[in-house]
């Protein structure tokens, strides 16, 4: 596969790992957060952490829109889907997210709700067109990567005059979330030395929106491609900046990301969406100006207005450490519920819900390392 295989080359990986090991300052630790859930998944799936020196720690950030969607919004989606007139179209990732009272979209479907998994908004539009007596609602989630496709679908529905199509919008914004994480730094436990910036969000928004990280928080950002070699190169670039006392926004994913991003996509987003005053994020609480809703011009396609949805906030399990984990203050293994009550089959909180969440990634790919650590700790005590 072109533009994929080359960036997974194990020989190059060994070489880059050796260079990283040679260039790190043995007298300090480096703590980098990869913001994007896709990077979390890639790091776990390819075992990238095995290739990094012990004094480089990767903190997994909240860039997983499935993980940060609050329970109240899933409850709303389930309630919508339980309306016999409604066909709810959703990305497959959301099916198992736990909602209130042990429900989920998957369980709602088993109970008879018309919930259909789609690959794309285009599929949802097709369903709305083919089944005019169904109220087709598209459950929209995602950061700026996924928002332009939703914008186009809404515009397409308006052009086609599709009366039975609407969108339940939960799109969220990356730079604002980054600021919330950085503002929450409160000491050594949460210290971050730099950020690995998202790959495909950046193809849309460009590199400029991250400049505040360098100017306001004095931390470097390297926008990284999606493949494991991209991630390793980006980590090396961050290490070099820190060692050299520099602090800039750099772009490693030059083959797909430009400074200005995708102007057309940005224009579509600006036309269809408005900024919400605030939005609740699972694990982060209320974050102002962090999410989007449909603008008045497209109100007719807004499921919240059409179905008069008023979200009721629902609390997370009190023992759940997702909030601290999303901010990088704690690790999955620091949570009492991890691996016992909270597993991928029985997720209690956001970090275990999607394969990109820190806890899920660690559980599915990485928890075998806990044994060696536990053995070392037992031997030391």
């Amino acid at each position, binding site marked *: 596969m072109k533009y994929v295989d080359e960036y997974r080359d*194990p020989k190059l990986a060994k070489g880059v790992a050796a260079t990283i090991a040679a260039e790190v300052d043995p007298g300090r630790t480096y703590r980098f957060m990869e913001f994007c859930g896709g990077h979390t*998944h890639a790091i776990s799936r390819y075992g990238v952490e095995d*290739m990094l020196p012990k004094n480089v720690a990767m903190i997994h950030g909240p860039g997983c829109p499935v993980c940060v969607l609050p329970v109240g919004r899933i409850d709303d989606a389930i309630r919508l889907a339980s309306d016999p007139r409604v066909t709810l179209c959703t990305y*497959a990732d959301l099916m198992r997210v736990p909602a209130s009272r042990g429900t989920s979209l998957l369980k709602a479907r088993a109970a008879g709700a018309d919930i259909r998994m789609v690959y794309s908004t285009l599929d949802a539009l097709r369903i709305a067109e083919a089944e005019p007596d169904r109220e087709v609602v598209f459950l929209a989630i995602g950061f700026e990567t996924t928002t332009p496709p939703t914008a186009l679908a809404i515009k397409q529905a308006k052009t086609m005059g599709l009366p039975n199509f609407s969108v339940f919008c939960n799109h969220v914004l990356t730079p604002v979330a980054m600021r919330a994480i950085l503002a929450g730094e409160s000491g050594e436990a949460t210290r971050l030395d730099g950020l690995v910036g998202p790959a495909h969000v950046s193809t849309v928004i460009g590199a400029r929106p991250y400049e505040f990280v360098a100017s306001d928080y004095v931390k470097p950002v390297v926008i990284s491609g999606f493949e494991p070699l991209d991630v390793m190169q980006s980590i090396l670039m961050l290490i070099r900046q820190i060692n050299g006392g520099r602090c800039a926004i750099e772009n490693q994913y030059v083959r797909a990301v430009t400074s200005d991003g995708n102007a057309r996509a940005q224009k579509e987003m600006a036309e269809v969406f408005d900024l919400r005053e605030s939005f609740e994020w699972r694990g982060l609480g209320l974050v102002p100006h962090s999410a989007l809703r449909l603008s008045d011009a497209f109100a007719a396609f807004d499921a919240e207005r059409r179905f008069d949805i008023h979200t009721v906030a629902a609390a997370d399990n009190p023992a759940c450490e997702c909030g601290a984990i999303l901010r990088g203050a704690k690790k999955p293994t620091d949570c009492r519920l991890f691996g016992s009550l909270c597993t991928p089959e029985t997720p209690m909180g956001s970090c275990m819900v999607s394969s990109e969440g820190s806890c899920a990634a660690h559980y599915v790919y990485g928890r075998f390392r806990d044994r060696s650590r536990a053995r070392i700790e037992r031997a030391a005590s």
Partner: protein
Amino acid sequence: MNLVMKPVRRKLDMRNGRVDLSHGSGGRAMAQLVSDIFHEAFDNDWLRRNDDQASLDAPAGRLVMTTDGYVVSPLFFPGGDIGSLSVHGTINDIAMAGATPKYLSASFIIEEGFALAELQRIAQSMGEASRAAGVPIVTGDTKVVERGKADGVFISTAGVGVLPDGLSLSSDKARPGDAVLVSGSMGDHGVAIMSRRENLEFGVEILSDSAALHGLTASMIAVAGGALRVMRDPTRGGLAAALNEIAHQSNVGFAIAEDMIPVKPQVAAACEFLGLDPLYVANEGKLMAICAPESAETLLGVMRAHPLGRDAALIGHVVEDERNFVEMTTHFGGGRIVDWLSGEQLPRIC
């Protein structure tokens, strides 16, 4: 004057006819359906007797029996259909024990309104698969349910076979040091099915690998039966499910290498597209075998000499591990575990 009137027996309208409730009622209509479609396709002495059961010579040795249900959707897919799949799958369950499959039964639950032409296609496909494998379908049953109560047709099968003396393969027999072999590329069947699923349609030239493996297993047993611990065909849940199950049953772990696991480039690309892991994708014509390490080379040679084992490979070894992890060195060089599948593998968008 002819006083003895015999009703004119109308032929089934295979082109445009549909199954209706009378075909399940036990009366003439059902007898005709069974005869014209199933007996015609499976054709053998037992079925020609038209009994409700088949009388079989009891073979010498230990009897092996299996039962399976087939609910695949879509019914017809690149490389096969629910019919051929049911024959191959049942035979494979017997073959994985090291047994020689002898007889099959097939029971059909058909939805009212199902096209006779499609039923005939499925039956013909089963007949062909059964003949090619040399394992007859000796008895069966037919039921018809109301529209909406079955997804076209469901097939339930049973199979019996005979185990050679002294052979006793089992999931609890894997031991540290044993070699892990696979007979060929992983993930073909699941990708072929998914490429035809609604809302996921993509163009790819992958055929299901649906095939009967008893010829392959027989040749493996002839050469190194004593060295084999367990064989498993990695169907639902893929290779990952098979390895995790055996790890738990045998109370061991596995150390495997991603680079050693054969995956066709198009299957890899389709999985990339959908965010799936080929290790979790179903296979219907492949087997995994665990054997004593000193016999691995010999077994590989025998497998590669067989048309269904050309791409056979050694993918790793059994290790001591009380936590029963399947550890894998990735292509990239780092390590990860191949864990149990959580629920159904839904295509990942993230």
